[in-house]
């Protein structure tokens, strides 16, 4: 009983019959993506009076991207993600209000670092359980942080919010204005950078392993992967990004309110991501755009009962558009992919 052909993986040279092009191509940006990133530029000209709202969308999008990393890719369902958003928001706020350091970029870096630390501290607790248990631990951590911020009234400003934050001009050139121009450009630029990073991460071997863990975590150790180590890394990275989003909110509004840590924010960002479609990055962006805009319009049209409409929209999406809004493009994408393969 001896083998008839040489060993598989020891054979040298490329394989003749397997086309590697589709995998190679996946890394390249597509035309539609360029078109998408023209949207924020177009918005600048089309809605000059709504820059504050647009800034809010950009910040929400960053937060949603962060959640997409842990939920959409790594598969950790969390209802406590506001914890890191809030830690970032307070970190940036304290840096200015308590230490008098008002440089926005420095604040971002500081907030990202502090949030990453918070992520590192919480990860063993979160990764311990699964399913409902894990979900409840994330809620518990979020709630405890909220209560802690409320208790530390004198330090955080409690429910009245942290006052006295002043931002120095961005790069020493542009100060934050009432129209929100600087804030908008700043937020969109940060969003773009975060998106690029996220896009690289999810397309890398690390990102592939996260998706694989999501699909079948039990198999991963048999491939030589420490699941906990990967999830911890993803958790910390997502915490840092959430912290950046929180810091941006602090810097563009120049105060911190305690609701940055609230359960409502955690629940809302989860809704936004699922609405847009989890596990595809653009779902996070589209979800943020649609949800915040919808919320804004409905609250304007019908301030008393907008919740009813939001609720109906959510139910409708689940019943008729299962994979979120981005799920709608799936059939087209597959069609496109098939054409490309044939070519």
């Amino acid at each position, binding site marked *: 009983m001896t083998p008839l052909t040489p060993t598989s993986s020891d054979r040298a040279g490329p394989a003749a019959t397997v086309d590697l092009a589709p995998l190679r191509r996946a890394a390249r940006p597509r035309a539609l993506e360029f078109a998408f990133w023209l949207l924020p530029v177009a918005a600048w000209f089309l809605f000059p*009076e709504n820059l504050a709202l647009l800034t809010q969308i950009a910040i929400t999008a960053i937060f949603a991207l962060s959640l997409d990393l842990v939920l959409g890719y790594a598969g950790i369902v969390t209802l406590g993600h506001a914890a890191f958003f809030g830690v970032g928001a307070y970190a940036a706020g304290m840096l200015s209000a308590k230490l008098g350091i008002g440089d926005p970029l420095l604040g971002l870096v500081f907030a990202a670092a502090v949030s990453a630390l918070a992520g590192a501290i919480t990860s063993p607790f979160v990764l311990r359980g699964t399913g409902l248990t894990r979900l409840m631990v994330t809620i518990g951590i979020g709630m405890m942080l909220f209560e802690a911020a409320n208790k530390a009234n004198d330090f955080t400003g*409690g429910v*009245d919010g942290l*006052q006295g934050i002043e931002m120095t001009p961005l790069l020493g050139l542009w100060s934050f204005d009432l*129209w929100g121009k600087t804030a908008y450009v700043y937020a969109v630029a940060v969003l773009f950078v975060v998106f690029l990073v996220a896009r690289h991460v999810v397309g890398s071997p690390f990102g592939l392993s996260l998706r694989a863990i999501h699909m079948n975590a039990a198999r991963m150790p048999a491939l030589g992967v420490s699941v906990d180590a990967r999830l911890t890394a993803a958790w910390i990275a997502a915490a840092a990004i959430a912290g950046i989003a929180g810091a941006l909110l602090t810097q563009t509004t120049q105060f911190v*309110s305690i609701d940055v840590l609230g359960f409502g924010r955690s629940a809302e960002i989860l809704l936004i991501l699922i609405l847009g479609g989890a596990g595809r990055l653009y779902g996070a962006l589209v979800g943020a755009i649609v949800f915040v805009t919808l919320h804004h319009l409905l609250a304007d*049209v019908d301030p*008393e*009962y907008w*919740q009813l409409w939001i609720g109906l929209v959510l139910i409708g999406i689940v019943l008729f558009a299962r994979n979120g809004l981005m799920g709608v493009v799936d059939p087209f994408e597959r069609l496109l992919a098939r054409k490309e393969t044939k070519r």
Partner: protein
Amino acid sequence: MSKFSLIACTVLAMSGFGLAAEAADPAPIKIGVIASYSGPYADYGRQFDDGIALWLDEHGGKLGGHPVEIVKKDVPGAAPDLAKRVAQELVVKDKVNFFAGLDFSPNAYAVGAVAKEAKIPAIVMNASSSAITTQSPYVARVSFTVQQVSDPMARWAVKNGITKVYTIVADYGPGADSETAFEKAFTANGGAIVGKVRAPLSSPDFSAYVQRIKDEKPQAVFFFFPSGVLPPAFLKAAKERGLEEAGIKVIATGEATDDSYLEATGDVALGLITSHHYSYAHPSEKNRKFVEGIARVTGKKLRPSYFAVAAYDGMAALDGALAKTGGDVDGAKVMEALKGLSFESPRGPIEIDAATRDIVQTVYIRKTEKVNGELVNVEFDQFDKVKDPAKQ
């Protein structure tokens, strides 16, 4: 996007033909009202609307000779990032002349910052955190501060022979403010705080706290909770444990017997002694007309609360200020004119402090009683010209 922006309530001048000699109407004044119109606190927005609508109804829809346009913005609950954004939009998009409303303190802080930057006066019609007016020079308050209504309660208690008090407040900023103000006034007048506790806002079950209070045997317990869910929950627990029978008096600030919630609170509130700046049962001619007027403009039999009266007074204050500036709506001039303004409100005489832009008013001590089958706050003692103690 602007076509979606709904101007919910537009009150234009009803210029009579008899006044044809007058030149064309001056430009309308735009007021951005930021308040809760949805969610659990939607009643606040409605009360503001009622107060504003009544004042405009009584004054031919004009403010300082200008027609008025109200732009309502929904910021439900404490959501300062939203409030800030909305305020920015009101400035750059709707180009409002004044901010008004502001039910929650965090929102008022956020809007105060915008007001300062845009030099647009903001009239706080409820938010009661003391430092709001200190933070921004473009903020004037016509409502009250937590300290302002807590302090007289302490002085009244001492005056009536209560020297040992246990305090329980909601564990958040205003709760802490109330606790501090009460303790300061109480101990300064010779009383002693035998125990104090801050209960979490989310806590619906007060039995443990009440048991603790009962075991401590103070002469009275003073509590401060935001109006709504918590005061009735506390009162129920107090009744169930028999605090009254154990000889422990229950005193509180007026949030406990907020007119909007008093009927729902029910008989557990009977006999409760509270301190506040407005009761809809305030016995004055001005208030009688006010209550009737609210019923008239809304067509409903709802009690106006301190929100409605502050909104009404906020309009009166702006009108008074515009009378001083001769109709000039320039922010700095209006702010200057607001300082030291005093007039008669349905709640009694009020004044906007010239130095702090905060309100100076009478604080009443009331007892909850049943009058004609309805629970009302009956005023029986008062402290005149109370300033915000946190600013002294």
